[in-house]
């Protein structure tokens, strides 16, 4: 019986071909557009999040207690080297790095700007966040007083590869010190503060420039997926400030939440409109066949089989729309994932707001499972109203009236 009903449902779905095709196209177009948009927005947010983590604070960062309120070198972690080594041995730790930062003035022969000298270890940074991926131009090379400069700072100071820059700041003893550096590379992390102000120099050079011990650092950052690690570290290093990524960057959390809210609202509105579309077609399609249903009831077919047939018709249309939408969606997302959306025309604006000039989409299985469930639900719900009408039918009257 089910096979027969399925066959009837299939045939009836395409009885009015233009009408059915319009609904299928509507579902496919709206679904693929929605998926492309969701993938692009998620891709933007994830990329920003990932790069912010890899370029700076990782999943967890340790600071000296007062450093975040007063980011001065006197608020550094003095035994950072040994703490780092201890943490590296802990379970769940993927990588650890330490940095020594100090704010000051960067000057060229013609321009000056605020800057932060960031003492790093390139090998450590590479393991921690694949630092080489952030290189925009030049080379990761610290030879001959070499330095790497954030892309926005390079723009402000009009720095090019090979340019000379003087960085001045106060050292640990309170004296104003200056260091002459040669730009070897320009980096773009999409972390606004680093791109705007960072001058990366070998950590040991920064330590001696600031008259600090080489074991001193202003931050120790950890890459880890272990959610219990922060608690463990807070207990073990109670003298330090142990913060998670989102505690340090609440804006990122807010941005992620807003993206989820925006995508959910978009999803809801689109699915609601899709529901209205299917409802309209199914309603008219059923009313067109009232006589047919009257005859079926008249010759003894039970209502539940008619109901099943109508639900199957709606599900068939919804499913074909979903399959087509998924194909287009995958194609869109694949294209945007591989080639991205090129906004190089607005490069300055994108970079100043911490975005890359080419935005890449992400693709998640949940996009398709959620949409599948929503479309199937919309398909079933859309026939409830017409079904009520069928249920109330008196077969004899219907057949008479139509004749």
């Amino acid at each position, binding site marked *: 019986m089910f096979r027969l009903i399925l066959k009837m449902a299939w045939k009836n779905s395409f009885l009015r071909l233009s009408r059915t095709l319009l609904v299928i*196209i509507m579902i496919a177009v709206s679904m693929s557009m929605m998926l492309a948009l969701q993938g692009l927005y998620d891709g933007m947010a994830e990329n920003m999040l990932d790069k912010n983590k890899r370029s700076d604070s990782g999943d967890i960062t340790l600071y000296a207690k007062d450093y975040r309120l007063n980011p001065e070198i006197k608020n550094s972690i003095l035994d950072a080297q040994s703490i780092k080594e201890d943490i590296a041995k802990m379970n769940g730790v993927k990588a650890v790095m330490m940095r020594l930062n100090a704010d000051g003035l960067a000057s060229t022969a013609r321009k000056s700007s605020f*800057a932060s000298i960031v003492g790093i270890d390139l090998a450590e940074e590479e393991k921690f966040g694949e630092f080489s991926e952030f290189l925009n131009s030049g080379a990761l090379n610290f030879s001959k007083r070499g330095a790497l400069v954030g892309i926005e700072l390079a723009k402000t100071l009009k720095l090019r590869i090979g340019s000379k820059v003087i960085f001045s700041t106060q050292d640990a003893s309170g004296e104003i010190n200056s260091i002459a550096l040669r730009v070897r590379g320009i980096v773009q992390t999409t972390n606004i503060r680093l791109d705007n102000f960072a001058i990366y120099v070998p950590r040991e050079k920064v330590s001696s420039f600031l008259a600090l011990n080489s074991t001193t650092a202003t931050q120790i950052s950890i890459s880890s997926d272990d959610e219990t690690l922060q608690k463990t570290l807070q207990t073990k290093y109670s003298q330090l400030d142990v913060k998670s990524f989102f505690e340090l960057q*609440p804006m990122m959390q807010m941005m992620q939440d807003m993206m989820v809210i925006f995508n959910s609202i978009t999803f809801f*509105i689109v699915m609601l409109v899709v529901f209205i*579309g299917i409802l*309209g077609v199914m309603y008219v399609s059923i009313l067109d066949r009232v006589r047919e249903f009257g005859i079926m009831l008249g010759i003894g077919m039970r209502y539940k089989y008619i109901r099943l047939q109508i639900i199957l018709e709606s599900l068939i249309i919804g499913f074909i729309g979903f399959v087509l939408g998924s194909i287009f969606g995958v194609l869109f997302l694949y294209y945007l994932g591989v080639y991205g959306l090129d906004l190089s025309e607005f490069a*300055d*604006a*994108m970079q100043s707001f911490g975005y890359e000039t080419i935005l890449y989409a992400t693709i998640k299985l949940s996009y398709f499972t959620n949409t599948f469930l929503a479309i199937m639900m919309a398909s079933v719900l859309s026939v409830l109203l017409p079904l009520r009408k069928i249920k109330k039918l008196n077969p004899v009257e219907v057949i008479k009236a139509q004749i």
Partner: protein
Amino acid sequence: MFSLALKNILFYKGRSITTVLLTFVSAMLFVVYVSMMDGSHKSMLENSLKIYTGAIEIYKKEYRDVGGNEYLIKDVEKITKKLELINGVKSYTTRYETYGLLSSKENSSASMIAGVEALKESEHSSIQKALVSGKYLSDLSGNCLYMGDGLVKKLKISLNDELAFVGAASDDSFAADIFKLCGIFKTGSFGFDSTSSFVSRDYFDALMYADNKASYINIKVDNLEDVERIKADIQKALNDDTLEVLTWKTLMKTMVDAMEVDSIFGYISLALFLIVIFFVIMIYGFVNISSRIKEFGVLESIGLSNTNILKLLFYEIFILTSLAILIATPIAASITYYYTQNPIIIEGISEMYKDYGIVSDEIPFDFNPFTIIWNIGVIYLLNLISIIYPYLYIKSFSPIEASHHV
């Protein structure tokens, strides 16, 4: 044809109600969303313009790209005299900006230090209004320094504390002095407040050998919409190839571009909603038409031409769209007007997005009748396009075929 369309609308209530409802939702969404987007962009630009950047600024060519003392404007008086004669220039002020190191007893920090004409500056920027403690500058305030609160915190100083300044004078010689902190300001712009300090122009000129020199001239105009015309007038009056006259659109290009990118994404999101709604309206129209094929066949048989059928469909969709628009427009316009006057406030948003130049917790809308008109125009256009396929579908039937259609 019009009365027939009206009759059809009343007869096919389901289709009519759905079309009106969906058109109403599209129109509301479109007008309100665009107003919010434009309003927040406008507010960001206006806030930035109010803080420090001028509507028009005059620079020596290469000053912005290369920089350095050789690109200072060297005959300021000659230029400003010409500015006084230009229609639309409300006022002007000159600024001498440099970067240097400021040191308190405990800390040192880099700062942008600008010599400003205190009285004129208060008309050109919001730094006087942003005073939070102490006093603003005057032409006679000598070595008084007026500093952003972020920088004050960084240097850990309080009012009347002394600060040592080290920098380079306009002739590239070494410049050093002792300043006294007389006032603290907070504009809300995180970057500006943590990097800027100001000193009276007269005093700074003597220290920096900057008499009759300026980094640039900042110009305020009577009407922001006239900037291009005023810029052209200034260029003509100056007649000097070594100078460049830039409007806020160039001075704040990064922000203008960022707004454009944001708008592109906004319109892409809106397009998704409008396309889905367009499809549904078309489907309802098509379903309605396809169930009336027989009726059209009879009408054609008694002499109704294709043009008349198109007219009929046009009237139907036009009446339904107009009805929805008539309800949606005043409601949407009232919402946008209300929120233009009473912006939505999201506490803490400026703190959260301080790195992005957000200086206010307010999200104002932009009530602009012209924008509302083109928004509504787009909805009309989409609804009118939605009758094309149903019309072509009817046209594909001959009158006899249509009369026999079931």
